[in-house]
């Protein structure tokens, strides 16, 4: 199995005033294509920073990050944006939908950045919303949708440019448990049926256990790997 994500000796150091904070401390691991990993740890453990580094939202202070076999450490901001656009789909705890746009428009947004033609954008957006069970609410704005529905719109948005990797940061953290289970089912389906690589950050052990592999992190260090 080819590695789709590989971290080699990654450290991320923040300067908070005069204090150096090591959010990540020489982390190394790899994720194969079509896998489901959960990253678990208490708040402040560095798990969100780890997801930021994997998602190319930030560069590590030390070490190297490979995405789909390509080293990303020397890339420009726009080159990283291109990889995010083509290979990575983000799902956030707070959904992060654009409030002014309808569900469909939110889903179409990444395709706009990718330069997909208008008619195709609409068609594909509709398909994706149907896939997550929101075919009947495509013209609703985020504030007219429930938390679970908003997260499903966000998942549809993450899938628009057919990414290989889905990064989910506490995807069920802001929604009720019934909707949370729905979201988890979708993530598992993406891994099993769509052959995506899913990386999920959570602090909930019962959720983490549904992943194929678990990585436990504390004080910026991986303390346990479990299958």
């Amino acid at each position, binding site marked *: 199995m080819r590695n789709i994500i590989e971290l080699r000796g990654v450290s991320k150091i923040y300067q908070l005033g005069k204090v150096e904070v090591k959010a990540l401390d020489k982390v190394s691991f790899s994720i194969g294509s079509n896998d489901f990993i959960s990253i678990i740890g208490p708040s402040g453990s560095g798990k969100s920073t780890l997801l930021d580094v994997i998602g190319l939202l*930030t560069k590590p202070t030390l070490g190297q990050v490979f995405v789909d076999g390509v080293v990303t450490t020397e890339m420009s901001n726009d080159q990283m944006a291109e990889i995010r656009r083509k290979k990575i789909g983000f799902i956030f705890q707070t959904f*992060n939908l654009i409030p002014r746009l309808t569900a469909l428009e939110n889903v179409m947004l990444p395709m706009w950045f990718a330069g997909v033609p208008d008619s195709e954008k609409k068609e594909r957006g509709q398909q994706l919303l149907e896939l997550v069970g929101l075919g009947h609410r495509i013209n609703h704005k985020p504030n007219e949708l429930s938390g679970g529905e908003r997260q499903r719109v966000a998942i549809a948005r993450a899938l628009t440019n057919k990414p290989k990797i889905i990064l989910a940061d506490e995807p069920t953290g802001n929604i009720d448990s019934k909707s949370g289970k729905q979201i988890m089912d979708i993530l598992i389906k993406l891994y099993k049926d769509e052959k995506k690589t899913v990386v999920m950050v959570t602090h909930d052990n019962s959720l983490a256990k549904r992943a194929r592999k678990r990585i436990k992190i504390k004080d910026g260090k991986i303390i346990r790997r479990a299958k």
Partner: protein
Amino acid sequence: MIELLRVALRNLMQQRARSLLTLLGVIIGIAAIVALVSVGEGLQYAVNEQFEKMGMDKIMVMPGSPDSPGLSGMMFGMGELTDRDVKIIEKVGGVEMAAPMILESAIIEMGRETAYTYVAGMPVEKKIMKMIEDMQGYEIRAGRDLTESDKYAALIGYGVENDLFDKNVRVRDKIKINGRTFRVVGVMEKIGSRMDDLSIIIPLEQSKEVLNKTDYFYIIVDVKNGEDVSKVAEKIKHDLKKDRNAEDFNLQTSEQLKETAASILGIIQAVFVGIAAISLVVGGIGIMNTMLMAVMERTREIGVMKAIGATEKRIMSIFLVESALIGLLGGVLGIALGSLVSYGVSLAATSYTSIPIKTIVAPYLVVGALAFSMVVGVISGAYPARRAARMDPVEALRWE
């Protein structure tokens, strides 16, 4: 690009009140520029037309040294123009005729009322009267013109007829100028300038007597057809200087007068447009302020857009198009408002001064104003847009 415009319009509509206020700043700036430029051009046009009417073959000779025209002659009482000078001018080759004029304020009485106004003494030879009438653009509305046989006869302006006394002055009424009785023989059409309309014209000889003057306010020289006006002017200057032994007079051709007027108007217009441009700069600062606020409010959104793959260029263009749109919309509405104002000014000018100022909103002005407003929008939006583009995605996403 169409998508960008749609997104920008939508973002602007979201903060309607703020966008409108920002827009207003640009509208006022552009409207001021358009109105001032078009009124200025209308004025320029009107002035040119006045000079065309006066004819380009005239030379004005006035007392006073050319270094400080008008002033020194009046202040020191030197450099008086008299009949001797008129004779010298008439002898210069190329001169058709020379018409001296006296202008002085005087006490006017009618019945028991007394008023002050200007009295102008003019030669009453037919061809000279004709030339002056053409130049000043006056016409007889009632009664008749002065003729060579008139002595104590007066031609009154529109203002004298209507405003000077309680009762209107009519043809055949008798008025006293500095105590001498004159008969009103004609009333002039309204000219438009207050001073002209409040004037009383009497024959030159009688004006010397009642105004107690022998020197002239100015001498108008008509140059023969086909003669070079500036060469004739040089000759007059030379001859007068030789006779008077000093250059204590001042000589201007109609061409020079036209140029002087045009350059004064140009300076006034430049100053006004400069002030208007400053107001547009203030409008630009308004755009910058609004865009900075928008960038801050949408920090999280910017983070999201970056996370889902927007390049810095794309983020920048989203905000730049928004600010350019404010500029452009402000430009369109500003041009509309400015044209309206300039139309209003031309209406007001026509009804209050009777000098028809036709204000023109030239195509170049429209295009220029649009381009200028858009440039202001883009320049003001550049810094906020750059800030948005350079934002760190992680920090932007965590922004509360």
